[in-house]
């Protein structure tokens, strides 16, 4: 972590106290603002996915798909009885016909089910563990003889396309964060080169007086760190105000899905670390840029 070393108090005046380049702190502030928002979006999506996943992780459904209502009822009853006896299943809850009718009402109307329409019998299962393929296979094996028309599915499998979408959104957010970090580095690189050109005469003099590359680099790192710190502070304050405003609005809507996207404490900690990471990135970029340039001098 030697690159984080800053010059001693008396050395600080060797490079003029003005900012390296006028707009740099503001450009960094904008970059930080956008980075924090992109990261917050990604973290929110992840929080939402994690919460939904946790809800569905140990849940499965057994469908008894049998056209004959008597046979269907018989197999469903046998399945409930068998499933109630195994340790893997914590809770067995047959879904009543009324509930099934209510679920299907948007498609078949509210007049009730016609006996001629074969509707599968549904059994909700809460498992003592995740609804993995191995656990589901154990249930399938159990039901193979007593309820051959039974199909066993994890609740999560129904939402797989949604999870895939959420995963894609997380990668998109991560990509944006990396892109913004790259843009921040490029901004610092240009600012460092510009500062080197501006102070080339002072650098030459310092070299001839015996200053090392490290001493000269630390002077520029300090200025870059100040600019990045200033930009980072503005960026995070602005971003937090926006996030707070959005969080309040999400809370007012009261939608479970939206509320599931609320950031957790460790998500906030990650967001708080972004400006610090930005400052470190800026100092590292400045150090590499300036050291490379100095090595071309004698």
């Amino acid at each position: 972590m030697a690159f984080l070393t800053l010059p001693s108090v008396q050395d600080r005046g060797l490079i003029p106290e003005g900012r390296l380049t006028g707009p740099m702190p503001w450009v960094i502030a904008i970059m930080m603002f956008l980075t924090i928002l992109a990261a917050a979006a990604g973290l929110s999506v992840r929080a939402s996915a994690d919460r939904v996943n946790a809800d569905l992780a140990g849940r499965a459904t057994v469908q008894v798909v049998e056209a004959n209502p008597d046979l269907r009822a018989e197999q469903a009853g046998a399945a409930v009885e068998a499933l109630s006896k195994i340790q893997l299943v914590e809770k067995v809850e047959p879904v009543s016909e009324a509930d099934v009718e209510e679920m299907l009402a948007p498609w078949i109307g509210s007049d009730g089910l016609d006996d001629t329409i074969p509707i599968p019998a549904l059994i909700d299962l809460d498992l003592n563990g995740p609804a993995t393929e191995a656990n589901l296979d154990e249930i399938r094996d159990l039901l193979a003889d007593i309820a051959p028309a039974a199909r066993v599915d994890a609740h999560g499998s129904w939402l797989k396309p949604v999870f895939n979408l959420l995963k894609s959104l997380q990668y998109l957010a991560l990509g944006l964060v990396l892109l913004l970090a790259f843009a921040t580095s490029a901004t610092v690189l240009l600012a460092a080169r510009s500062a080197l050109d501006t102070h080339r005469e002072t650098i030459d003099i310092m070299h001839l007086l015996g200053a090392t590359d490290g001493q000269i680099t630390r002077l520029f790192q300090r200025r870059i760190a100040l600019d990045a710190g200033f930009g980072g502070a503005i960026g995070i304050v602005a971003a937090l105000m926006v996030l707070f405003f959005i969080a309040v609005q999400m809370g007012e809507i009261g939608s479970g899905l939206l509320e599931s996207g609320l950031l957790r404490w460790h998500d906030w900690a990650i967001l708080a670390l972004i400006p610090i990471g930005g400052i470190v990135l800026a100092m590292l970029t400045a150090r590499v840029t300036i050291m490379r340039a100095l090595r071309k001098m004698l």
Partner: protein
Amino acid sequence: MDSIVQFENVGLRYGTDTETLSDISFTLFPGRFYFLTGASGAGKTSLLRLLFLAQRPSRGLIKLFGTDAVTLPREELPALRRRIGVVFQDFRLVPHLSAFDNIALPLRVAGVSERELQQPVAEMLDWVGIGDRASARPATLSGGEQQRVAIARAVISRPEILVADEPTGNVDPDMALRLLRLFEALNKLGTTVVVATHDLHLLSKVKDAQMMHLDKGHISDPTGALRYPPRPDDARRVR
């Protein structure tokens, strides 16, 4: 006596031009006072730049303090440079720093604490006669005052070699003599002094000073032992 500077067949070429300096060979010894003379364009500044490690030669050997300065890795140059004080022809003061801070620069580079450097810098300002201009920036100083700041900066860290390029070029004769006396005082403390000048009158002002003469990139006195005015023995050495 061990030499402090040794040049052997040194040549310096800028780009593809003809050599600015050719076959330069001389030896300087500790505690001596040397003048480097020559007309404008003779190569005095180029030779001094090699001496204070602002440049590497195109060929030849340069030894400073017994170290081969030509092949020395650049990471090790700062330590060598701190043993050499330089008065640049154009002063090269840092414009945004006060006279005090310009003079303090070599000490700060060397890591001297702020508390420890206050007294020597103040004494140095008085020594060069600008104690009342400590907080002035270079732009507000006269040419002579800037020159004295440049000299004070060059000697503040008690270098083993002091290299001065036309140090009296911008001052009146009285001040030129005073500056020369400063160099002499430093020389008496053991510093090897090398002063480049085209003003031959200065040469007679320093007792026992030796002279090297440059003419179109060639040195006339390979031993660096000529005196001014030349003694009969010296005259035979000049090519």
